[in-house]
């Protein structure tokens, strides 16, 4: 038997086998590359969402939310928050961005909508109330990550002034 090198059949079989492995490898690399470009915008949105929620919720807690009213500025929604120290901050929601206290965050994937945007309990629980502002995102990449913005406040009705447009 001649063992000095490849025969043509051996060479073809080897190339065939290596090609199969390479196809899987390139497929995997292609997926990784696509995922990487998607990840950039997903991570930015995720980071912005966390930042928006954190900034507003911290204001609710530290500045002590007194009242919420709707306003007519944003494309989708607009809320004015009044705090115990007398300051007022506006949350303006447009389809592709959110502006809070003059700081703007862009949404790279999807759009903000106004469906089921606000809910506040009435006096059914005595002095206890909760306020829930929900800003859903539609048409975004479905990757299992939460994109909707949710702002919550649980407190005492006696500690807030009447919300003009929002029944509480």
């Amino acid at each position: 038997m001649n063992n000095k090198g490849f025969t043509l059949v051996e060479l073809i079989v080897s190339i065939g086998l290596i090609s199969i492995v390479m196809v899987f490898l390139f497929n995997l690399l292609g997926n990784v590359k696509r995922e990487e470009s998607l990840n950039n915008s997903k991570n930015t949105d995720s980071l912005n969402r966390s930042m928006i929620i954190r900034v507003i919720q911290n204001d609710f807690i530290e500045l002590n939310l007194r009242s919420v009213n709707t306003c007519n500025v944003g494309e989708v929604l607009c809320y004015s928050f009044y705090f115990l120290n007398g300051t007022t901050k506006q949350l303006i929601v447009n389809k592709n961005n959110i502006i809070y206290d003059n700081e703007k965050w862009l949404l790279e994937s999807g759009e903000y909508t106004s469906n089921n945007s606000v809910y506040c309990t009435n006096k059914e629980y005595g002095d206890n109330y909760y306020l829930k502002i929900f800003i859903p995102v539609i048409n975004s990449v479905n990757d299992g990550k939460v994109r909707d913005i949710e702002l919550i406040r649980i407190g005492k009705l006696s500690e807030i002034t009447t919300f003009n447009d929002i029944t509480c």
Partner: protein
Amino acid sequence: MKKGFIFVETIVVVAFLTTALLLIYTSFIQVLVEEKQRNSFDDTAYIYRTYYIEDFLVSLNLEDYIYNHLETEVDGVKPLVTMFNCGDLSLYNLRDVNNNIIQSEVDKQKFCEAIINGGRFDVVNIYITRYDVSELSDCVEEDSIICKKNDELRNLSSGVISYIKTLSGFDDGYRLIIEYKDQEDNYYYSNVKIAKRG
């Protein structure tokens, strides 16, 4: 003497490469699954939700509740976890010294039922554990005799168990762990240290 690869050698090399690639792929998939699971742990919105729920619960007689359910021995063993229940009357001071009903406490109970059992906040279960969950974490893993005596431990879902295993911290005190389920049946988990009242 051989001067290059022979057919068998090529197959061995290809098989070796394929095995290596398969191993890499398997661990890659595992990382992706774990990453997906981590998305449901400690999401910012749920952290604030948990914070507010904890803030409300602290306004009830939560210390008494914890004493009754975590510090009182059951079959000679202190439970490691307890499931919070709004219906437990030890949480409220429902009557005053003249045995009259205190309406504000009744309202608190109704509010508790609304936010926890009413589905308004998507709460599935609320668990109270010691802040240091290392014993609980080991217990769940090893399924030791102590764990078998704690009935509520057997009711922990696999999601909660996975979440507990990610928790750290050795402080004194207690921890509130909340399991949520959204409209699309996705589960989320969040925890907060229970603050002392006052």
